[in-house]
């Protein structure tokens, strides 16, 4: 017989629900309202239907920025996930060294976004920065403010420096949760290190890896502060990602209608990807 669920526990969720309603639902309803109107000021606004949606969906500037954003998030995931796994596999498992490693790994995560941007802005400068000046001394022409490729590499390396630790720590916790019997069985079978990784460690890390991929995707997909501080979106528009384009539109040009329409498209992309990850995660748990 199926157990009847006790729905009274939902009352405990009510405070959070109210909080989220005020911090997310009401602002989002406002954004939806803005996205169908041409707003000049509070007293003069006109209903324009789906015009702003049509405008933003056909805007080449937003297409470029969306493409850059997908490429950026893909690069972030392709670098940080394997690197994080590799670091987690090489980290010591016991003793003082493991504690020290954990603390060192956690330090970049504690630094605020704008500080990370400033650190790398100075670090990469061709005249006084340790990285920039050293590369130029070695004869490599490096200037993130003028060269598109240099700007991309710097923004990517900065993100890798800031967030690989998160992936590594998640994988480390996943690895520590594997019971020793699996390794004993592998030793009896004389499994190679690769076989242990492929058939024991990787499947056991599946759920934490899904969380890591989801967190890194969402975070990199909405990245704003770090590239804004480091390159200001330049050179040209080379590192102008979605949220910066959106901010320019909403706050810089005060085009509230198109900005609202675009933020809803942005939201739908995030919603779809998060739902796919959530479904994959819950199905992995069921299996």
């Amino acid at each position, binding site marked *: 017989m199926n157990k*009847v*669920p006790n*729905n009274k526990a939902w009352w405990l969720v009510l405070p959070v629900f109210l909080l989220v309603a005020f911090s997310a639902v*009401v602002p989002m*309803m*406002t954004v*939806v*309202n*803005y996205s*169908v*109107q041409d*707003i000049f000021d*509070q007293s003069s*606004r006109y*209903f324009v*239907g*789906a015009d702003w*949606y*049509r405008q933003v*969906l*056909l805007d080449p500037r937003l297409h470029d920025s969306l493409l850059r954003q997908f490429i950026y998030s893909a690069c972030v995931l392709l670098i940080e996930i394997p690197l994080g796994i590799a670091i987690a596999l090489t980290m010591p498992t016991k003793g003082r060294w493991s504690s020290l490693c954990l603390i060192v790994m956690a330090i970049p995560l504690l630094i605020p976004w704008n500080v990370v941007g400033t650190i790398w802005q100075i670090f990469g400068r061709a005249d006084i920065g340790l990285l920039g000046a050293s590369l130029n001394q070695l004869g490599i022409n490096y200037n993130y403010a003028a060269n598109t490729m240099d700007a991309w590499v710097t923004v990517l390396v900065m993100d890798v420096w800031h967030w690989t630790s998160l992936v590594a720590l998640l994988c480390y916790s996943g690895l520590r949760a594997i019971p020793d019997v699996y390794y004993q069985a592998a030793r009896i079978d004389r499994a190679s290190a690769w076989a242990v990784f492929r058939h024991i460690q990787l499947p056991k890390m599946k759920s934490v890896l899904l969380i890591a991929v989801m967190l890194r995707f969402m975070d990199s997909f909405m990245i704003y502060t770090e590239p804004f501080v480091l390159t200001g979106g330049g050179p040209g528009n080379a590192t102008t990602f979605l949220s910066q384009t959106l901010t320019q539109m909403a706050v810089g040009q005060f085009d509230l209608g198109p900005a609202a329409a675009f933020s809803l*498209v942005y939201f*739908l992309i995030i*919603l*779809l990807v998060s*739902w796919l990850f959530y*479904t994959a995660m819950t*199905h992995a748990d069921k299996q």
Partner: protein
Amino acid sequence: MDWMAWTLPTAIFFASIGLLLLGMTLYELRRPCVERRGFLPIATTRGDRLFIGLLVSAYLHLLVIGLSDWNLWVASLLSLAWLLVVMRWG
């Protein structure tokens, strides 16, 4: 409420979503649903199917706006049909 810049169509839209959620809650309380497998590749509950239905409807509207000159009502009617199909056989 003036700062929220309400319009009649958006008010109707949110009221319908609200009523839909309320209706689903009451329906769930009266007749709790069982997870099942339809034509969708995963087992879903009634709420899952509603979410999938609404998300696909939103993308359908964007497709119609972005890629065609069709009237938006076409997208809305297609979405309604899709929603009914996914709720019944999804």
